[in-house]
Structure formats: C-alpha cells, structure tokens
C-alpha cells in the first residue's frame, strides 16, 4: 500500500457527524439573518401602517387578529380544507410530473411530443386553469383539485426531465457492460442521480401548490384559507387578511424546512 492509499482519517460515522454539525451551524447562522430580515420588514411595515391607516393594519392590530383567528374554530376548519387540497395536489402533481418527466428524459419522441405542451402549460396564467376547471366540472372539490394539479405538474415535469437528460451517461455504459437489467438501471443507477431533482421538484410543487390554492379557493370555493381571505377582503377587514397570510406563511415555511431538511439528510448521506 502506498501513502496515497492510506485510509482517509477517522471513521465514516465521525465524518458524517462532523458534516451534520457544520450544516447545523450554517443553518443557525442563516437563522440569525432570517430574524434580522423579518425585523427590518416589520420596521418598514410600522410607519407604513400609520401612514395608510386604515387600509394597512398595524403590526399590533395584526397580532391581535392572529390570536383571534387561532381561537376560532372556523379557522381550523378552513386550514384543514386548504391543507387537504395542497396535499392532494402535491402528491398527484408529484407522481404525474415524475412519471412524465422520466418518460420525456428517456425517450426522444416523448420529449419532442410533450415539450411544446409543457412550454404552453407553463405559460398559461393559473386563473385560466381555475376558470376552465370550474366551467368543466362546476364549483366543487373536483375542479379545485384539477386546477391545482394541472397548474403544478408542468413545473415538476420540467425539473425532472432536465435532470434525467443531464444524467451521467457513462454510468449507463457501466450498467450495460455489467448487464444490469431494467430494474437495477432504474433503482440503482438512474433514480439516485435524480434525488436532488426530486427534492427541488418537491419544494417547488409544495410552494406553488400553496400559493395557487389560495387563488383557486378565492375563485371557486366556499371553504379554505383563500375563501376566508376573500371574505375578509369583501368586508374590508385587512388586518384579517394580513393575519391569514402570516399564519399560513409561517406554517408552510415550517413544514417545508423540516421536511426538506430531513429528506435531504436521509437521501444524500453518501456525499463525501
């Protein structure tokens, strides 16, 4: 054994622990900046709310409104309805988008056929989907889900097919030389390469779903956070609009950060 071949210091377990600690420290530093950004936003908000009274509520009024909402049973009812819709869109658009993205990435004819469709789908404004879904299925859960899924899926497809097309072709050669069958080519060679794309697609589809769901609900639903925001707007209760927006943002951010961080750590443990 040469010097170059000496084992890299420490055990793997320690290396992983070290890396996680560093990641945590970076995350902690990031947290400080996030708090600062929110503080600055609040500082801008405050004089603005005094200036534009009563259309922009003060932070204090908004805070009171948030507490009121959190004590209100209707709020949880709406939150549940919206969450269910987001989850449906997330799962359905994820499944559809990954399947179609894989197909487009691997098959030239599929790519050529679907590329213009995806390009158009990405360009269509989201309310158009809502309107057409409502016209087709009438007002109801079905059209809400459909509009959401149709709006989100193209983004997932786009990320996944790009990543499939950019895969390491040399590993495909290796798999062929060693006679890997279709199952191993997918499970062991292709899919692990796509994990970062899946994580990105997951983040995107989640973020998009909860942005669009509010619009969809505003346009087509009697329940959900979007409908509640529209009600508050009609009654000119802007502090409630703000309160909904803030609660929802905090919740979604918390879900996203926790889920993404856990998934990343689990799926990418092999990275040196």
């Amino acid at each position, binding site marked *: *054994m*040469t*010097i*170059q*071949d*000496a*084992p*890299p210091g420490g055990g*793997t377990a320690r*290396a992983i622990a070290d890396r996680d600690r560093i990641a945590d420290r970076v995350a902690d530093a990031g947290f400080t900046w996030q708090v600062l950004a929110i503080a600055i936003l609040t500082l801008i908000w405050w004089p603005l709310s005094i200036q534009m009274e009563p259309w922009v509520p003060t932070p204090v009024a908004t805070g009171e409104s948030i507490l009121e909402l959190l004590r209100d049973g209707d709020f949880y009812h709406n939150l549940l309805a919206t969450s269910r819709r987001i989850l449906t869109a997330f799962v359905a658009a994820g499944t559809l988008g990954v399947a179609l993205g894989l197909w487009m990435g691997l098959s030239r004819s599929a790519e050529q056929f679907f590329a213009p469709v995806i390009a158009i789908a990405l360009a269509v404004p989201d309310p158009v989907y809502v309107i057409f879904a409502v016209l087709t299925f009438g007002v109801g859960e079905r059209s809400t889900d459909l509009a959401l899924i149709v709006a989100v899926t193209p983004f997932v497809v786009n990320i996944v097919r790009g990543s499939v097309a950019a895969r390491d072709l*040399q*590993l495909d*050669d*290796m798999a*062929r*030389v*060693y*006679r*890997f*069958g279709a199952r*191993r080519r997918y499970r*062991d*060679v292709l899919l*692990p390469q796509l*994990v970062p794309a899946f994580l990105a697609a997951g983040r995107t589809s989640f973020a998009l779903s909860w942005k669009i769901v509010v619009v969809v609900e505003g346009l087509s639903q009697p329940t959900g956070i979007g409908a509640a925001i529209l009600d508050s707007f009609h009654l000119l209760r802007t502090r409630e609009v703000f309160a909904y927006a803030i609660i929802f943002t905090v919740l979604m951010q918390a879900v996203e950060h926790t889920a993404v961080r856990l998934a990343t750590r689990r799926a990418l*443990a*092999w*990275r*040196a």
Partner: protein
Amino acid sequence: MEPTATPEQHGAISVVAVEDLGVSYDGSPAVERIDLHVEHGEFVSILGPSGCGKSTMLNVLAGLLEPSRGRVAIAGVEVLGPRGPAPDLGYVFQDHRLLPWRTVRRNIELALAAKGVPKAAWRERIDRYLTLLKIDQFAESWPLRLSGGQRQRVSIARALAVEPAMILMDEPLSTLDEVTARSMRQELLDVWNRTGSTIVFVTHSIREAVFLSDRILILSQGPGTVLEDYQVPLARPRRYEDPALAQVEAEIVEKVLDRWGIGAGDGEAAT
C-alpha cells in the same frame, strides 16, 4: 508464451477474436482495419497515440458500439453492439465508474447479481477480491470517501469478481499520480498471475505497455490500423526501472516515431 495462469486453453477458440474490424462515425472512419486474437490468460496491450481509435475499439469489444465492418467475438460469442447480448467481460474504465450512492460492497454485488451469481456466494467472493486488491477494510464505505487509487482498486475488484472471460482496461491508471500508478501496475501483474485472467489493456504509455504485456498491438494514428503485433521479449518478473525494459521501450519509440507523426509520442520515452 503462456504465463503462470491456469492452462486450460484449447488454442482453437481465442478468448478475443477481432477480424477486419472497421468502425465509422457518420461516414468518417475511426478504426480502419484491425485484427486481434487474444488467448486465454494472455496480457495484451493496445498501444496508440491519442485519437487512434483505441477507445472506439474498446467500446466495440464491450458491445457499446456497433462495428461497421468485420467480426468481433468474445469467448466464441459474436459481439453485435448495443442491440446484441452483452459480452462476458469485466471493464475497468479510465475513471472508476462506481455508483457513489452505493457502498463498495453493494457496487460489486450489483455486478454479481446481474451476472446471475447466486446470492449465497456474494460475500465470500467480494471479500476475496477486495482482499486481493488490499481494500477489504473499505467494503462498507461510500466510494466518494476513498482515494482515487482505492476507487480504481474497487473498480478492478468488480471486474475480477464477475469472473468474466476477459477484462478490458481503458487506461485505468492514467488518472492516478505516478507513485500510486507504479505500485498499482505491480499489483495488477500480481493479481493477473494469481487469477489467471485474460486482460486487454489500452494505454498510450509505451513503458507501461512494455512493463505489463505479453504482446503489444501497436496502432497507427487515427483512423487506426495495426502497425505491428509486437511480442515483448522480456522474461517475468520485470522491474519498471530495468534498463532492458527501457531498451525495448526505445526500440518501440524508434518504430513508431515517424509513423505516429511528430508530437504524437512526445514525452513517452521519458516516463
């Protein structure tokens, strides 16, 4: 000139039979006309300047590329390119080509499983070859945690572990630093001796070819043809620094100097 390996050779069927091979990309030839026969247990190098079609030829042997002309057979089975069945071989690429998201053991297991080796035999076989390559302590490691030399050892262990009819090696030591490469060359010969494998080794380094091989197939500049099928006139074991080896090297340099053109073989004589 049969090395120490198992002499169950029949002579009738060459492990590798390449006859009148030609390969073209979009009408322009990359390989013009190559004949090559490799017998069981032989160590044969393919030597040529950059762009002579060495890698193209290897891809044809591996079944990754369809020949435009001629016939290629490995262990008596014709190689037909990507549409045909994959030939029975191990391949050590220039880079390690391990799956970084699978452990060292799992990487080799995948090749064994694909080859149809029964699961019960995996552990013993993998441990045996990892030990042979002196990397048994890294069996459960992620490839990216290993050094370049260690990864290439895993890659060689994988090629050996499937116990193929032959092993192709495409400049496998060219990305390593010189000290690591030297010790790996020596160990490669030890492994070859112990396992009796048949090896076809592609390189652009004349000294490496002389040190390792029984025979050297010297190719012309691209599109490749065979300049000479050269029998290395040196007994084994050899020493990399042996003056006799340097002399054989000089002889080959002399042969190819004007054929490879000015610049193509630069620096090789000095290594």
